[in-house]
């Protein structure tokens, strides 16, 4: 029983990363209709930024939580201005391919610079150790990751659903022409929103750095699972991506315990089932 509880906890942690990543993807897709293949690479850059800030500037993990996403978001905005925006007029598939190409460049550049094995990064001293509760052991850092990501997801939801800024973004997403007609400069919002989505990915990377191996390909296979989650949850729904992310994390963790060989494929089987029964996704609507 306790083992089950621990595995569910584990699954929630993994789900937290999925939630953050699919949240970022959903925000970017909602606004720009761009499926950002780079998301995995940006997550990786967030982790590396944390490492670099720590080793070359002595910046602590706590500051990195703020600075790394900002830095990576800045890079993301530069890439958006330089490359992505040129393709808004044509089929969105081109932007998918473009971000695929950029992913290769980013991943390989990091590989050339840091090697494929990656670099080590430790948890901040405050969060080391574990919380023991009877027979259960919860590493403190993982508790932090869970709590922090839930907070970020709630914050994002609140901003988008309950603030004026969010209202503008939602309007621009649903009907840009009408929004423009109402006097709002929709185009001005594109870079910040893109940057925000990127920042979410980078934040996931910062959180991952002490837990996972910081290596150039750390985001590569994560992105494909994230895509599957996004299809399951339905793009464009903030709540949908978050809930689906956590859900899938738990399901995959439990699968890894009870029948390891299929744990990798479980998320894709889920995706197939959703496509069969409810193609729009759990929380989406067919366009």
């Amino acid at each position, binding site marked *: 029983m306790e083992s089950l509880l621990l595995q569910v906890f584990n699954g929630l942690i993994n789900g937290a990363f999925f939630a953050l990543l699919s949240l970022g993807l959903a925000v970017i897709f909602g606004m720009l209709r761009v499926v950002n293949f780079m998301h995995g690479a940006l997550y990786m850059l967030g982790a590396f930024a944390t490492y670099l800030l720590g080793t070359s500037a002595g910046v602590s993990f706590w500051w990195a939580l703020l600075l790394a996403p900002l830095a990576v978001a800045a890079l993301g905005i530069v890439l958006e201005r330089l490359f992505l925006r040129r393709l808004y007029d044509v089929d969105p598939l081109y932007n998918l391919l473009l971000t695929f190409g950029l992913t290769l460049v980013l*991943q390989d550049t990091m590989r050339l610079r840091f090697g494929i094995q990656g670099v080590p990064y430790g948890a901040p001293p405050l969060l080391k150790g574990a919380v023991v509760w009877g027979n259960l052991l919860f590493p403190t850092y993982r508790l932090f990751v869970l709590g922090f990501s839930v907070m970020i997801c709630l914050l994002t939801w609140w901003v988008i659903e309950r603030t004026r800024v969010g209202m503008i973004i939602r309007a621009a997403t649903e009907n*840009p022409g009408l929004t423009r007609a109402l006097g709002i400069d929709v185009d001005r919002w594109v870079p910040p929103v893109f940057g925000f989505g990127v920042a979410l990915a980078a934040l996931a990377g910062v959180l991952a750095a002490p837990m996972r191996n910081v290596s150039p390909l750390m985001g590569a296979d994560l992105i494909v699972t994230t895509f599957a989650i996004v299809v399951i949850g339905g793009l464009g729904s903030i709540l949908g991506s978050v809930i689906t992310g956590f859900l899938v994390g738990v399901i995959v963790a439990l699968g890894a315990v009870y029948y390891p060989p299929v744990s990798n494929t479980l998320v894709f089987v889920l995706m197939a089932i959703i496509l069969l029964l409810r193609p729009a996704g759990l929380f989406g609507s067919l366009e």
Partner: protein
Amino acid sequence: MTVRRIGWVALGGLVLLLPRLVYEGLALDILTWALFATSVDILLGHTGLLSFGHAAFFGAGAYASGLLALRGGVPYPVNAVAGALVAGALSVPLLYLAVRRRGIYFAMITLAFAQMIYYIINEWRSLTGGENGVQGVPRVLVGGLDLSNLTLFYYVTVPLVVLGIWMCWRIVHSPFGRVLMAIRENEVRARSLGYPVDRYKLLSAVLSCTLSGFAGGMYVIAHRFVALETVHWITSGTVVMMVLLGGMETTLGPAVGAALVLFLRDILSTWTDAWGVATGAIFVAVILVFRQGIVGTLQRLIQSRLHPAPQSAPRRPDEATPVSR
């Protein structure tokens, strides 16, 4: 018209002389990838569906042919044809589900399914050898002729590849192909005209996957080996890049793209370790400024000489972005 004929003869000569000009292994790779890329173009260029998972079918064809050759003693090219059929059969259920969504979703779903196939091939060790792959695949022609000599094998494979590429051409230059084009241009309208759009898309995809499987079958016999890398999504991305670089929707574009990318890879890998950066950079450049690809641009130049008329970049009005420039 004679210019065209000379062009075809020159191409034929180049293909026949290729093993003299480059290492035979590279020449064979160019052949098999040319077919692979051309089959991908059926779906991408002509039907307007980007599949990010074609490596799964290329790989499925390769694994099936390799295993049939190794464990079943099936000769070439029967094993390659069988591989094609296996790939086709595999594609039916997966793509049936995938065509239920359009555009971007289709791409993501194919990517996800291909990843699933990757994991399954990895796990099903008793069949596929898992990480080790299928090794020591025999290379024997129907009738018993030993094809160990790589050059001989090349010349046996040329007509097969030509046949495959011709089949791709035939599929798209047909009434069926016309409907695909209609679906690509305006799916809603095609549907409103009464065409069972999903069925057409599915058939187009299955044909594309079958021919990719055929290419895979030839690939495994050429290398006498297949392993997981062949079904990884980077392979899917690479073949799409070849199609784009060479020119979507053109007959020879994908083949030209394949040849170019493989050449580049061969030359670059001896000098530099930065193959990934170079590939990615080329990809980005092609998408930004060179979307017609080499052959496409050439065709345009020739067209504009003959009929000067403005043509715009492909538009998908039913999926217009909310943000315009």
